[in-house]
């Protein structure tokens, strides 16, 4: 039998439902795995072992009374250390916030708890979520479970490492330019950036208001769907969260992809790819076609200019958050984050406004020219597998974000699902991007692909 900590949420939940395992068994299995591999992955900043055990006992009592809340009840999950958890520090992996205790739960954590999930701890990240490598953390970088000489990707570095190494069943991450999808790709797990506004950001330390998204990471698409279900929907504490109806995501997974229209870009997303990544992604698209999807080339409007829009929005929005600390204690930032914040001062107001107008134009163009013809766009999530930790940060960062950050400007839902390994044994992901609010189709296609392949069966060797 598979060890408990490697089960999917769906499998573990089924054991709980049948009383063949208890929430405490799952928490203890996760804690044992953290003990076993935690030091080598550095995925956690804070482990809430005692609190998790107390919550697990309480969950077991509720379930014994016949008050099981649903598939997440009793499941240990962890959150990027950017989400507030009441009574626990929210460090953002920074020196500046180290020791800052959150007064209340963030909206997403509140919803996870309401669904019965057990918060196991807070996960490492690139400082203030402002970097795609995960290398700059006040607590040291997380390490890739597949090869500790390689980065995890970021900024949700600990989320990717912890899920990939079985230290928790799922995690929350955030994604402003790819920070869920990049570590998902590089660590070999599933990561979903939902539609902008789908998931509350209340109690989440911001990076860039108009680009920030929160979302789930897990080992299977179904598990991502279960977490998304719990955290989606309008939150009156987040004015930018949407009241758009939330469908039953898990139910949508039962469908096939026959007749689904998938566009494959004729440029940009297939430029300068690692050869293993290119063959793996093209093979994955072929699998979807074999399953009945209709695959055709697509030209993506404004794609080459979208990164310029991201630049002129993210840089000043991030500095606006950090301006006071950058004036008073700039030396307390890591080199890479300080540099990006300083650059924020060089974007003038006109460029910021033009970038927001460009965003509206690009969204209209994708809606009218892409999503009128296609249900999904299929691309690599990253151009490369996990780079070595001693490679240049700036060059690595620019290469890592180039297929993910355009989607943040659009605000459309996008998933990275594992679709292969390089000859050196490093994973990489297929990115499927869908229509606004149509996470269900994104999940359905990713699930169909996942079920047709066996990448999810692989485990990193420690």
């Amino acid at each position, binding site marked *: 039998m598979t060890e408990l900590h490697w089960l999917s949420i769906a499998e573990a939940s089924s054991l709980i439902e049948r009383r063949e395992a208890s929430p405490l068994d799952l928490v203890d299995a996760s804690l044992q795995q953290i003990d076993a591999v935690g030091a080598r992955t550095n995925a956690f900043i804070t482990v809430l072992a005692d609190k998790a055990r107390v919550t697990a006992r309480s969950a077991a009592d509720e379930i014994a009374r016949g008050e099981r809340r649903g598939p997440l009840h009793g499941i240990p999950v962890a959150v990027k250390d950017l989400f507030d958890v009441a009574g626990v520090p929210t460090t953002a992996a920074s020196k500046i916030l180290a020791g800052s205790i959150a007064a209340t739960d963030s909206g997403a954590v509140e919803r996870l708890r309401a669904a019965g999930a057990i918060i196991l701890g807070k996960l490492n990240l690139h400082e203030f979520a402002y970097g795609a490598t995960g290398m700059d953390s006040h607590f040291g970088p997380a390490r890739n479970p597949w090869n500790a000489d390689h980065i995890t990707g970021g900024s949700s570095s600990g989320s990717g490492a912890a899920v990939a190494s079985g230290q928790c069943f799922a995690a929350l991450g955030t994604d402003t330019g790819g920070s869920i999808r990049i570590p998902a790709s590089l660590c070999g797990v599933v990561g979903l950036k939902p539609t902008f506004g789908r998931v509350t950001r209340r109690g989440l330390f911001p990076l860039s208001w108009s680009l920030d998204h929160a979302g789930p990471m897990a080992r299977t698409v179904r598990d991502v769907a279960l977490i998304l279900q719990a955290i989606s929907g309008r939150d009156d504490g987040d004015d930018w969260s949407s009241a758009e109806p939330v469908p039953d995501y898990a139910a949508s997974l039962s469908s096939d992809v026959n007749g689904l229209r998938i566009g494959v870009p004729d440029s940009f997303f297939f430029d300068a790819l690692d050869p293993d990544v290119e063959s793996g992604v093209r093979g994955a698209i072929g699998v979807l076609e074999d399953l009945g999807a209709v695959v055709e080339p697509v030209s993506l409007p404004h794609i080459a200019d979208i990164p*310029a829009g991201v*630049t002129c929005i993210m840089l000043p929005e991030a500095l606006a958050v950090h*301006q006071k600390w*950058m*004036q008073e204690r700039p030396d307390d930032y890591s080199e890479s984050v300080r*540099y990006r914040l*300083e650059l924020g001062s*060089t974007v003038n107001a*006109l460029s910021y406004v033009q970038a927001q107008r460009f965003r509206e*134009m690009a969204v209209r163009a994708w809606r009218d020219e892409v999503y009128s013809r296609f249900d999904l766009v299929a691309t690599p999530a990253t151009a490369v597998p996990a780079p070595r930790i001693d490679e240049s940060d700036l060059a690595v960062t620019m290469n890592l974000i180039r297929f993910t950050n355009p989607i943040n400007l659009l605000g459309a839902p996008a998933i990275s699902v594992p679709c292969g390994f390089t000859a050196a044994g490093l994973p990489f992901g297929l990115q499927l991007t869908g229509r606004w609010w149509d996470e269900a189709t994104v999940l359905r296609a990713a699930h169909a692909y996942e079920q047709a392949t066996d990448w999810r069966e692989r485990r990193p060797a420690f």
Partner: protein
Amino acid sequence: MSMDDPARRAAALAASAGLKLPDARLAQVAFGLAGVAAAAATLARHDYGALEPASRFVAPPSR
């Protein structure tokens, strides 16, 4: 140095946001400034419709 000098310009822009750029950082930020300027130029090329639709004005009569 004039404001055409990227390092001086970077320092001035940072100062406008209340940031002090030590000399050791000027070259790096000035280098990044070029990238920001290129992004801004890219965005400035587009017609965002303030004068749109383009068809609102008829072509001037030929003489």
